[in-house]
């Protein structure tokens, strides 16, 4: 038995993480003690302040980190080696926090639906009963969504920074559990929303069961949960290779489920469609960023020496995700489902980047590491997604949001600005030059090519063409089809949603024209601590 060593908690480096967690707990207290009329202002103010303070904290920590033990990476291992505060962690923290600020702004939007938020008046009231009507008449709303979201943000920050399997599992659950609840809280179409929550929860719990058993087997193989120790064990080939192989496979099931890769994509369209649109926007962007951070850390740091056994698996998953996502997106008639399948295709593109070269010392001049390419792609994808879903929440009719694509016909005439912004986001997702999506795709494809994964890149290019067709089809519907009946109407958002859309569009445009600064930032982030 080893001696218990008291871990030193590096409060300065963990400051962003602790602020978010503290604000989440404080939000629960506010919910319990503040009177109802004050809660909205208090919760929104608290959440925004917390996120901004944490973002400033990330910048301060990033300026301050030093080289770790003379290696390639910069940063420290905090709390007894369980949390790695290194360059990639900090980059992902910053990105998640920026996306979460957009998420809070969308959550707080009250202009679109006649002075109430997109969340159920009283989630406990059964749809269609007097209790629900009473809650609607009283203009009730759930302000618990803000602390729930802050817990999810905490999970999203812990998940990619976890440096052992236990912390990673805890991060995974802290990320997921609030999102299961948030998916079920829609104000309108509550049956769909509750069904989405049930499906997300059951499948999510199922996949985390796989993750945990995989962790147990890997622990059995290496005798430790620590990534560095697992890497050591893999290099020295200490245990039974069967344990390693099955453990890796089961862990990948859990992680690939979270990013919605084929064949674990079944929940994506249902949950994206059923969840309230602000939740979908936040979840689609944030979860993918966090989960890809975790995937890269697990595969590069813990299982990097065993890459010949997991690479073929990721090849197949990447190719399947791209083709299935793009092909099924074409058949969709609902805009949220279409964006969901397009996110499955994007998962495939990002996995293509994950397959690239890993270490910076293997690079020729002018090449970038796969880590940089994926971080850049995640930035472009995150902002385009949150912006696109924010636009979806604007297009409405009497029954709430109009998500059927054929009802979007004539949007170009009804509201040229909204249609133009949405078309721009779609073009970015398609990867048209002068948008961020083009640079992102170029980056992930070039790192995959450099690593010799040309079959995946060929498949990715073909899938991009299929996907471009579906985005352009939506643009055609918006601009060139005759409106059905009255056509769609566009609700005027408050400054909150407008800011989110504007920032999303601006980032998408700027990263398409001058990607240099963010690519440099990703390069400065450097490597994972190994």
């Amino acid at each position, binding site marked *: *038995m080893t001696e218990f060593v008291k871990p030193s908690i590096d409060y300065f480096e963990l400051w962003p993480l602790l602020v978010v967690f503290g604000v989440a707990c404080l939000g629960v207290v506010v919910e319990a003690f503040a009177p109802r009329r004050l809660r909205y202002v208090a919760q929104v103010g608290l959440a925004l302040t917390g996120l901004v303070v944490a973002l400033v904290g990330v910048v301060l920590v990033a300026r301050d980190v030093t080289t770790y033990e003379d290696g390639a990476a910069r940063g420290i291992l905090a709390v007894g080696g369980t949390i790695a505060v290194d360059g990639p962690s900090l980059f992902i923290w910053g990105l998640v926090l920026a996306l979460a600020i957009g998420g809070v702004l969308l959550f707080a939007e009250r202009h679109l639906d006649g002075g109430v938020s997109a969340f159920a008046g009283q989630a406990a009231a059964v749809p269609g009963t007097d209790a629900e009507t009473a809650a609607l008449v009283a203009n009730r709303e759930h302000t618990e969504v803000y602390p729930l979201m802050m817990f999810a943000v905490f999970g999203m920050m812990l998940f990619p920074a976890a440096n052992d399997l236990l912390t990673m599992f805890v991060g995974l659950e802290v990320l997921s559990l609030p999102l299961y609840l948030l998916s079920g809280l829609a104000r309108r179409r509550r049956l769909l929303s509750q*069904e989405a929550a*049930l499906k997300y929860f*059951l499948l999510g*719990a199922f996949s985390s*069961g796989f993750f*945990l058993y995989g962790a*147990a087997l890997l622990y*059995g193989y290496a005798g430790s949960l620590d990534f560095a120790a697992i890497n050591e064990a893999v290099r020295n080939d200490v245990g039974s290779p069967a344990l390693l192989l099955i453990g890796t496979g089961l862990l990948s099931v859990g992680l690939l489920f979270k990013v919605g890769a084929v064949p674990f994509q079944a929940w994506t369209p249902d949950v994206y469609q059923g969840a309230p649109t602000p939740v979908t926007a936040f979840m689609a962007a944030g979860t993918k960023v966090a989960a890809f951070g975790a995937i890269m850390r697990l595969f590069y740091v813990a299982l990097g020496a065993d890459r010949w056994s997991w690479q073929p698996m990721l090849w197949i998953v990447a190719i399947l995700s791209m083709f299935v996502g793009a092909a099924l997106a074409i058949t*969709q008639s609902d805009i949220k489902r279409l964006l969901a399948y397009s996110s499955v295709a994007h998962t495939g593109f990002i996995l293509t980047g994950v397959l690239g070269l890993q270490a910076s010392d293997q690079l020729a001049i002018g090449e970038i590491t796969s880590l940089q390419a994926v971080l850049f792609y995640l930035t472009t994808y995150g902002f385009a997604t949150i912006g696109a879903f924010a636009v979806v929440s604007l297009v409405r009719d009497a029954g709430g949001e109009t998500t059927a694509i054929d009802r979007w016909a004539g949007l170009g005439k009804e509201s040229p600005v909204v249609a133009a912004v949405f078309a721009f986001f779609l073009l970015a997702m398609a990867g048209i030059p002068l948008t961020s999506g083009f640079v992102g795709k170029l980056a992930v494809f070039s790192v995959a090519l450099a690593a010799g994964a040309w079959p995946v890149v060929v498949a990715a290019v073909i899938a991009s063409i299929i996907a471009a067709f579906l985005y352009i089809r939506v643009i055609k519907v918006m601009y060139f089809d005759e409106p059905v009946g009255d056509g769609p109407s566009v609700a005027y958002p408050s400054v909150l949603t407008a800011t989110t859309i504007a920032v999303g569009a601006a980032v998408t445009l700027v990263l398409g024209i001058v990607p240099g600064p963010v690519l440099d930032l990703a390069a400065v982030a450097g490597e994972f601590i190994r």
Partner: protein
Amino acid sequence: MTQYVVLSAILFTIGCVGVLTRRNAIVVFMCVELMLNASNLAFVAFAKQHGNLDGQITAFFVMVVAAAEVVIGLAIIMTIFRTRRSASVDDASLLKY
């Protein structure tokens, strides 16, 4: 030691098959819990084999996480049941295609 790991694998498989075949959301959820407990057994068995405490500590964490998951899961299943008067996963089929 191998017996315990084999037992945990059997429990995990039973849980996994249960999730895929059972129709009641509560039973599906119980099967997920079985999978988590199978993992716990494996963790504890491997901890004994390797002679360190990591696996046993993990088992405690997993119990806490599983308890949190129960709270959230039962809340969601209860809401669905009160709306639909049914906890069958087949009945919840508005979202498709």
